[in-house]
């Protein structure tokens, strides 16, 4: 028999924790699934077990915020079953979740499901991007937060958006020299007045702190510039960078310069992680202002599949604060739907996070308008540049497939194996889709997506073979009855 539970929350980042806290506070028993061994997700990552930290203030503001959220979780009550170190491999009929940890797997049925799967760094292929020593902004954050060591000696930080300031400053804090910060878009703090809504926005206040620390340390900041390529035999030894056209960020290769660095950090924003909402059968739409494909949602963040909610960056990039607020709204709404609290009480509990969301979404819109990635970046990749790292498909091969008549991602996949590897297209689909749109003039909806297939996270055959909650169809071997009947 497949065990059933009133609520399953997938993901323990700000959105998942927010939902769990509110549901638990309302008295609803729930099961929280997360890949990591700690709660808090990527943003509120804690140092690995075994590292003893004497000065927690040195871990930064994100750590402190994570600790506050974790404390809120601890105070919310004990009716939460936490499956840590556990991945969701797939979702069936919006209700059944196949999960796997290192040693076990199983199927659980949820009366209601919250998917808070977060986001991943937007991959932008450029020559040398697969060399050791090229890291994503998110990867650097996770590395430094989890291991408390510096990932390189001298770094070039490139990408877009004031979040880069935090990454660069964290690198400095870890003891690395930052050669320069390259922003493909406009300056972060230009002389003209900033949008009024940014005043009082903690995210920007934090970014400004980091920026001031960088400026004080003499780290050069260059706007409308980005990294062009990384070079080295075994790992990064130097990087080439230069200006991009301010309108569409097309690299101006003729003006390239070189810097001697052993670390290149790239942060071009994030892509919502929609594998599970897709497998759950939720309808998706393309929303460039929110990072790409996202599940469609009605007020209070229910998807098109009744009883399945999506919150946080996995449902559209909104940042940690908004993710937590969305999660809280969802947690209250689920508790209300389950009859754990009355409608009037639910309305009251939703008020504060909804008000916060109205403010945050306006602030975020202004940020997105300035720092959303532009199409010219696809010109960074040369014909030899790997686009699909798993199956080693180059930009040239993608171009040949498109030239040969492929009009959508699925066709490119069948022709080149792009997206057929373990990452299921996370690293290649954004580039390939943009490229297809540029060449064919078709819309993102027309070029489509790479369909995720279970398992969306790695699992071994041995663990899958022992899955709990799935009945065995036949215990006896029917060929025993054959008795030489075939001839």
């Amino acid at each position, binding site marked *: 028999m497949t065990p059933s539970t009133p609520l399953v929350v997938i993901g323990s980042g700000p959105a998942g924790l927010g939902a769990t806290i509110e549901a638990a506070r309302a008295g609803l028993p729930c099961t929280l699934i997360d890949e990591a061994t700690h709660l808090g997700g990527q943003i509120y990552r804690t140092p690995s077990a075994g590292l003893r930290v004497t000065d927690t203030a040195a871990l930064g503001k994100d750590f402190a915020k994570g600790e506050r959220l974790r404390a809120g979780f601890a105070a919310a009550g004990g009716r939460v079953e936490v499956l840590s170190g556990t991945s969701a491999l797939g979702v069936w009929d919006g209700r059944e979740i196949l999960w796997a940890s290192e040693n076990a797997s199983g199927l659980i049925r949820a009366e209601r499901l919250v998917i808070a799967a977060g986001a991943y760094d937007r991959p932008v292929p450029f020559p040398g991007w697969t060399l050791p020593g090229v890291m994503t902004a998110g990867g650097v954050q996770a590395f430094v937060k989890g291991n408390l060591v510096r990932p390189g000696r001298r770094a070039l930080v490139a990408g877009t958006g004031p979040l880069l300031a935090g990454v660069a400053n964290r690198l400095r804090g870890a003891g690395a020299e930052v050669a320069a910060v390259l922003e493909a878009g406009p300056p972060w703090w230009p002389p003209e007045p900033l949008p009024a809504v940014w005043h009082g926005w903690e995210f920007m206040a934090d970014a400004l702190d980091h920026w001031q620390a960088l400026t004080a340390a003499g780290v050069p900041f260059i706007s409308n510039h980005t990294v062009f390529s990384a070079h080295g035999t075994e790992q990064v030894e130097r990087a080439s960078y230069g200006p991009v056209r301010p309108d569409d960020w097309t690299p101006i290769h003729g003006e390239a310069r070189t810097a001697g660095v052993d670390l290149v950090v790239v942060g071009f924003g994030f892509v919502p992680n929609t594998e599970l909402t897709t497998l759950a059968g939720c309808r998706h739409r393309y929303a460039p202002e929110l990072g790409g494909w996202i599940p469609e949602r009605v007020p209070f963040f229910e998807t098109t599949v009744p009883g399945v909610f999506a919150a946080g960056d996995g449902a559209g990039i909104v940042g940690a604060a908004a993710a937590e607020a969305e999660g809280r709204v969802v947690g209250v709404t689920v508790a209300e739907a389950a009859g754990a609290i009355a409608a009037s009480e639910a309305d009251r509990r939703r008020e504060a996070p909804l008000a916060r969301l109205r403010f945050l979404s306006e602030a975020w819109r202004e940020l997105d308008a300035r720092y959303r990635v532009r199409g010219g970046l696809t010109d960074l990749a040369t014909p030899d540049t790997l686009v699909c790292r798993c199956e080693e498909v180059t930009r040239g091969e993608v171009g040949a497939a498109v030239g040969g008549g492929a009009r959508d991602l699925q066709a490119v996949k069948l022709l080149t194996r792009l997206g057929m590897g373990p990452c299921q297209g996370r690293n290649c689909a954004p580039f390939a889709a943009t490229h297809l749109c540029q060449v064919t003039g078709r819309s993102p909806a027309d070029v489509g997506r790479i369909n995720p297939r279970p398992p969306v996270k790695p699992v071994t055959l041995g663990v899958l073979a022992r899955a709990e909650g799935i009945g065995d169809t036949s215990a006896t071997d029917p060929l025993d*009855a054959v008795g030489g009947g075939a001839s």
Partner: protein
Amino acid sequence: MNRSPDVVVVGGGVIGCAVAYYAAKRGLRVTLVDRPQRGRATSASAGGLWPLGESVGLGCGVIFYKAMAGLGSLPDGVHGPGQLPKVFLDFAVRSNAMFPDLAEALRETGGLDVEFERTSLLFLMYDEGDVAFAKPLWEHCPCGRDLTEWLTPEELARAEPAVTREVRGALRFHGDDQVNPYRLAEAFRTSARSLGATVVTHTEVTGLRVESGRVTAVETATGAIPCGLVVNAAGAWAPEIGRMAGVEIPVRPVRGQILGTEALPDVLSACLSTTDCYLAQKQHGEVIIGSTTEEVGYETGVTPAAMKALAAGAVRAVPFLKDVRVKRVWSGLRPGTPDELPILGPVEGLDGYLNACGHFRTGILNAPLTGLLVSEMIAGATPSFPAELFLLSRFSGAIRRADNR
């Protein structure tokens, strides 16, 4: 000036691509019309070329038999997986024999390696029931004794060190091979193109124009393509195309779920067939583990129960696989027919129309001979293989005659 009739092939799976290739090779003017389709059987094939194994009920057959027996839903009088008639074996053996030369020709014409490999197929015998099933196959195999080999557990351990030792032995079928199914379809398509065929992708066929009992054009979402002849190679969707010309085709979708592992170093030299699953290691290094046999209409998903069952079957056969990661699980819709034989050739009362469909579990294996045979029918040449037993008319009463105007 080429005076051959224009042929439109509907369907871009392995069969449609094979027909387009052989027709183009004969100098015919060919257009292949294809639409993107989830659940295409070619994309969910393991690429096993097992004329002997398939004809005696191994591969998917024995797994399906076990599942049915486990559910207690076997028809009365059925003992053991079904064997297919001699004509199937003859057809499949002939088709399989074409692969070595074909692989060479496709490499030369289309520049693609279809990864044809001589592997043999091993049926692993876990218990007395398996032995009792396999013994008569060995003694009276319709393929002849020289193509089968009985391996003791010791001989099996030497031949395939990765395979479990918990076996009574194995029956080997020499002459059963494998290929990369996607590359085969792609190589047919690419080669057809370089031989002059036109490939129209992402185009839905919306109708067949029938005038005076003859198909005269294929109507598509982007306009009509006049032609002298249409070939229905639409796989599980063949009934849809047939109906456009008033032809009822008894093909139904039969779902197969399949599991692929991460790439591994060479661990298996033969393909394996057990009562739980079959396994084939491809040149890329991944092991493909199949497959279910399910009648769920055009549903193309996968199920946790099948994932678990295939995983358990694979670990039982090759124990070290327990620590190997699953890369993905997907499914395809086999074009199933009532007697498990393909439907090839003309239809009475309708000119300018040929079937090349209903290949069920063996479309990859039977693609070369199907392509050759159908191209001969198109050209009006003497067929390389007698096609009478594969005509649609064998299903009496299944045909609604085309409207003769």
